[in-house]
């Protein structure tokens, strides 16, 4: 990671490694499977109806929007699928499809979508420039007077995601972001680590949610 050196005494290095190994082993049972994008393509046959062949999903004004999966972090996708299966995340439309996948298929499908180039998002066209500016402020700087921390402080620079816990939200459909923020507000979604998203979502106004969803949807993510 960026040429970091581990410092301190050799004793400490050993201690640190031991700790890391221990955690790795504990988590290992759940994530030992390796995803294969080719197998994932085959298993994703049932996903394309909503999430589309290019993983772009669809913004559905006034209805349930289907999130873009293309370019999302594989471990994040896999966690969401397991969460649907085990009731940690609720979605009547997603549950039956998640239940069709076994553990291997989950990591395969996750790998398949994660390798696709990020697609453009839709939605949020109905907000005016002032609201869009509010969205940009929330995404990049937050509104600390209301203790709303910026999206990018966890979702990373340009809100393209950080590690496997903080998904990319730039170029995600406005309708989807909006529905998820509302779900967190209403405690209908709570599968975020340590309630990090829930705590912030609850401080957002309806207008804040519309603003930030529209602005994030308007952002393009450069393909590598």
């Amino acid at each position: 990671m960026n040429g970091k050196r581990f410092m301190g005494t050799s004793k400490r290095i050993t201690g640190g490694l031991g700790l890391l190994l221990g955690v790795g082993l504990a988590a290992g049972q759940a994530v030992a499977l390796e995803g294969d994008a080719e197998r994932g393509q085959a298993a994703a046959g049932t996903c394309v109806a909503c999430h589309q062949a290019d993983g772009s999903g669809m913004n559905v004004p006034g209805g349930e929007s289907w999130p873009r999966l293309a370019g999302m972090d594989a471990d994040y996708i896999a966690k969401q699928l397991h969460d649907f299966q085990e009731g940690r995340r609720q979605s009547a439309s997603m549950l039956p499809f998640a239940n069709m996948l076994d553990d291997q298929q989950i990591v395969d499908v996750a790998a398949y979508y994660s390798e696709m180039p990020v697609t453009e998002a839709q939605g949020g066209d109905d907000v005016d420039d002032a609201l869009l500016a509010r969205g940009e402020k929330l995404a990049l700087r937050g509104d600390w007077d209301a203790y709303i921390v910026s999206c990018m402080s966890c979702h990373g620079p340009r809100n393209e995601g950080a590690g496997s816990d903080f998904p990319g939200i730039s170029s995600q459909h406005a309708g989807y972001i909006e529905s998820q923020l509302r779900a967190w507000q209403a405690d209908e979604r709570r599968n975020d680590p340590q309630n990090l998203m829930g705590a912030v979502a609850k401080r957002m106004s309806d207008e804040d949610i519309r603003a930030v969803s529209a602005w994030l949807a308007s952002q393009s993510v450069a393909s590598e």
Partner: protein
Amino acid sequence: MKQSRTTLAVASTTLIAGVSLAVSADTLHPAVETLVGLGYPAPQEDELVHIPPTMADLEASDMHPETKAVIRRGHDLFTNTQQLRGENVHNDMNCSSCHLGEGRQPFSAPVWAAAVTLPDYRGKNDHVNNLEERIAGCFAYSMNGTPPEYGSDDMLALTAYHQWLAKGAPMYPDQPIYGRGFPPPERPDELSYASGEALYMENCAICHSEDGSGLYQDGEYIFPPPWGDGSNNWGAGLVRVFTAAGFIKNNMPLGQPNSLSDQEAWDIAYYMSSQERPQDPRYTGDVAETLERFGPTFHRHSLYGQEGPDGEILADHANWGEKGDEITPWNVGVPRFEALKEALEAQ
């Protein structure tokens, strides 16, 4: 390009800012109401409450366009100090890693306070510091680097941003400042390393990582490292356990202030403060000697030179972090007003 539609928009939802209020119960600014709702103390009768202006206020102001540009540059340096990496910054931190909310946030060492209380005597370097010298100190210790020159463009931009945030606040206020610094919770009788470690793994590691290295992804800053080579060095204010406890209690986990108990905040601070980090630039070459010299004014609050969790002496090394031993901050150990000081002592 989709992005172009945002460029001309100007935020219109500005609250009154750049205001300082004498406190009375019915004049609580919405920002302060938010804080009280989150478990922060309400302002005391005699406290100075200052709501710094925002960047939107700056754009809306009628200051000279070049002045605005310089203040904007200061804000940019403050929130993305990594752009000075390799020159003035030799770790993985930004100013805003610790001074949350772009340096505006109460209980997160809001930086405008320095602009209205300095020049003033500072025990840490035993002389009167102005705002530039105070900021230079952050570069030497918190950024494990060496500061931009006094009067340089970058230094001027940073001080301009600090002073802009202080807009409307009284100079040399007689009143105590609401939310100044990182007010520490009351220190519990016992601190537990083991409990601190467990709490860190449970509450902090998701962002700051299990080994304390934070997260730098594809060459970009994401989460700051609380210890190790990428963190502040042993001379930074945050190595004082009470300061770390104050930071944690008031600000962490991000978005959930005051969610940890006093004991938990102190235990995590104690765990974090027991880890290694780059050497204090004031190091004499001997950890015990350095401790003796700087203990009374600083390190009596840190674990510098104390026995660490594995029985080793903390900071007993010449690891300077990324800056190596070639670069030494030019501002450390430079006395000022020596003749004045002598005259004062002779009295």
